[in-house]
């Protein structure tokens, strides 16, 4: 019974850790705006944490520059299971306008499995909220899989 309660609350309390992998700050600002009164992601239980140790959802923005690559990989490894990775904006998916630059080591798929991807430069806050909600569902499923495994 206790496990079921845990399963249920998994989707209700996803905590976000945000990694900026060389982003232009556009997506970062939009992510913060998601927590403002207008969109209020907290009503779904979202909360920004300061440490990957307590995160459930890792939001990555930016084209993965060579400077941030190792740091990103390390941080991703430090998130406890189950975890969901969300790529925010076009940059982590394709490199966007930075594609082909000598210092861009994207896309994010090279380093980790991306569960949810939000397109746009920058994505609308509505889209981000939707993606996070989707990520929360995936999180609950992952938890179930983990328990059954």
């Amino acid at each position, binding site marked *: 019974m*206790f*496990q079921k309660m845990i399963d249920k609350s998994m989707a209700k309390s996803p905590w976000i850790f945000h*990694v900026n992998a060389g982003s232009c700050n556009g997506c970062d600002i939009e992510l913060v705006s998601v927590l403002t009164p207008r969109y209020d992601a907290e009503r779904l239980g979202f909360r920004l944490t300061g*440490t*990957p*140790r307590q995160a459930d959802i890792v939001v990555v923005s930016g084209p993965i520059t060579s400077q*941030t690559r*190792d*740091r*990103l*990989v*390390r*941080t991703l*490894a*430090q998130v*406890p*299971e189950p975890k969901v990775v969300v790529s925010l904006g076009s940059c982590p998916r394709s490199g966007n306008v930075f594609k082909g630059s000598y210092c861009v080591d994207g896309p994010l798929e090279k380093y980790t499995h991306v569960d949810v991807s939000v397109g746009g430069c920058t994505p609308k806050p509505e889209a981000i909220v939707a993606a996070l909600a989707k990520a929360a569902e995936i999180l609950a499923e992952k938890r179930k899989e*983990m*328990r059954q*495994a």
Partner: protein
Amino acid sequence: MYDFMYHFPVLAIMVLFLGAFIASLVGRRNAVIRNAVVLIAMVTSLVLILSLVKPILLEGQTITYWLSNWEPVGDWAIGISLEVDALSLFFALIVVVAVFVSGVYSFFYMDRDDSLVNYYTLFSMLSGSVLGLVLSGDLFNMFVMIEIMTFTAVALTAFRNTYEGALEGAFKYLVVGSLGSTSVLIGIALIYSQMHTLNLAQLAAMLPGYDSPVTIIAFAFLFVGFGSKAFLFPFHPLAADAHAVAPASISLMISGVLTKCGVYGIIRLAYTVYQNVDVNVMNALKSVCNPMNANFVQYFITGVGVVTMFICVTMAFNQHNFKRLLAFHSISQVGYVITVIGLGSALGLSAGLFHAMNHTIFKGLLFLTAGAVQHATGSLDLDELGGLSKKMPGTCALFLIGAASISGLPPFNGFASKWMIYQAAFQKAGETGNFFFVVVCVAALITSVLTLASFIKVAQSVFFGQLNPKFAKTREVSLGMRIPMWILAILCVVTGLFPDKVQQWLLAPATSAAMNAAGYIDAAMGQGYAASFSIPSFQPQSIFLSGAWQPVMWLLLLVSVTLAVCIVALLGSDDKAPAISETNTDTPADPKYESFFSGEASVYSQVGGSDLFWGFKHNWRHYFSFMHNWHSGVVNDYTLYGAAAIAVALVLCVIFL
């Protein structure tokens, strides 16, 4: 009591001096015999003192032993006496246990030093002199023992004379300590000039009837002298210098035993000898034992205690050296003891005695852990050490017990005695209606928090955090060093869990012995002697504890701890992926188990001890920089502070008496 038991006190002292003598004779050739001699001496004196517990502490008898059988002639004490009542025995117990622990520890701790025969000779002499001091019934004998004690302590402080600052610390201790001894000697001369006797019992009988300001001035000198031996403000820089550089086993002796001698001297003087002194000037010393009244002497002693405890605890924030920090805390705790002793109530005195005992236990433990760290790593620098808890888990656990005790966290003994201290202070405040004692109470509580803070600092910078790569090869110290520490740690817990038993068996007899001047006099000079000087006979008042701290409540906590653990276990039991950290640290580290460092690769990074509590120190920066300059480290300055203390005590005498 059997007849032969009358010889036990003197035997307990002599066996230690004899041990010193024999050890120096045979020790040069054979280390094993030397150690055996010292061990036998220590154990014998331990057993002798322990065997006196039943008749003296539990049955309330008093042993008076006249050396060479020079008994009083015509009601006049002409011989030198040992007088062992419950108070003396209480301190003697502290001394012998501390000596035993320290001695056993040094067998293993000093294994890398040479010319150990000198060490053990001095060590035995130090033990013997301290024991002699607390058992003595004669003021001049006390002075001689103080001098031997100071001497051997100075020599032992300088024992590792290649160690940075060892000679310097010893020199300062010697110079300023001699000022304190001189003060005692002047006090003795003044008393002798008036009373023509130096026997404590006889003095206690005759002083009240003798109407002279000279004896009060003598009290001032003796108080400053004994205070300097307890390292009270402004003598505290000495302690810091001496503790920090002495071997850890000697630091234990200095903080746990030598300071107690000063405390003992003050208690003996203020409570027994000067108890009934009533100079024609406004109840000057009268009623040190009267709880319903507060007088100038009480304010003075309490004030000195509060200043000592507060200044020393703040000074500890500035320290980078593990043992120097402990030294300041040591004096801070002695400040607690003196504070409550000054209250002059039965509760206050027993709180003071309890804290004095606990101080020896937990401070000894902490100094020994510091010694273990020094032995294992060769360093005491708080900014350099770190992460040793993984290398020395046993020492770390012992340190945490000691730190919790000194910070007064329940259920350790520090809490039990501090609790009594607050109670005594506020009770005094309530009875006298004086706001001064409220301030005392608040200061004591705040000092307790600050103590906690600086031990958090030590824990974080020595045992936790990240391991300095320099100390990667550190190994746990040997079992022989850990066993003495465990003895002290267990004492910490036991006296913390059963304070009512300690109260019943140790504190109550010692407290009533200290207040029972008539009984003390009669035991030495014969029945009826006190009455002939119209010393009021002692009314055994029940030491009124306004509700004792009951550790039963802690059993409740233990129950809830267990339950909480069960809950956690229940939650975690079904977890399919219980995480175990990698134990194999040689393989390339999996980043998952590295410290989170904002994504950076984990490098050695430790918050330096002195950088902790920046927010607190920033607000007090003027105070701290003033204090830093004030503890200048120049021996002339420290002498000046000592001389000023004597001068202030005299001036106060002149003004108020």
